[in-house]
């Protein structure tokens, strides 16, 4: 089974993504934990794409999120500049409120909630696969 959705890299599109994942929950028999983990990871990855697209001044960048079963996994593809989020340095969790900086927690959450993370550059696209075994 494979379902996918293609969205514009805009913050306004993110609620649609969450609603889409929720709508897939029955046919993929997602339990509450899997549903949360997938919604969380796709939101973090998509929010990063939106921020990168804004910084690059790209108009109308798109990304596609696909959900597949057996094993349960999510693939996010975008045609932006090559970026491997699995190699991005994770911030060391700030120890004190004085030293805390904003941002950087999203990828840390993805590495905590996805059981597998795999990146490939395929035909000029970034392809990130996240497993939820």
């Amino acid at each position, binding site marked *: 089974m494979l379902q996918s959705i293609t969205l514009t890299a805009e*913050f*306004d599109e*993110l*609620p649609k993504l*969450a609603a889409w994942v929720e709508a897939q929950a029955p046919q993929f028999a997602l339990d*509450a*934990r899997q549903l*949360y983990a997938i*919604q*969380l990871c796709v*939101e*973090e990855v998509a*929010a990063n794409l939106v921020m990168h697209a804004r910084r690059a001044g790209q108009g109308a960048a798109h990304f596609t999120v696909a959900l597949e079963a057996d094993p349960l996994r999510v693939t996010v593809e975008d045609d932006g500049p090559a970026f491997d989020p699995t190699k991005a340095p994770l911030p060391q*969790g*700030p*120890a*004190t*409120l*004085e030293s*805390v900086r*904003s*941002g950087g*927690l*999203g990828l*840390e*959450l993805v590495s*905590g*909630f996805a059981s597998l993370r795999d990146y490939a550059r395929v035909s000029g696209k970034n392809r990130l696969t996240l497993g939820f075994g």
Partner: protein
Amino acid sequence: MDLSFEQLASGVTMISLKGRLDVTGAMKIDVQFAAVAAGNRAVVVDLGGVEFLASMGLRTLIMGAKSMHTKNGRMALWRPQPMVEEVLVTSGTTTLIPLAHDIAEAERLVLG
């Protein structure tokens, strides 16, 4: 995403959040949350009504706690749902802002 707040008899300010604290939810309450946090010395954030929390929501909580900290104020988080608690722990947020499941404990944490 909704934010409301009230003063408790103990002098603690209770900020109650309800809904999805995702990118759009965080954008909606960010300014008001920052203002209420910065204007009070002892704040308990009721997360019981928060169904979903992602990194932008964490940022809202952490920046609020940080601005309180610079004025010797304190914030505590109260009664998150299990998955929301897992996000708080996985991200290291609970090392920055203490978490309580019991309201008396939450008030004690911020009154010191």
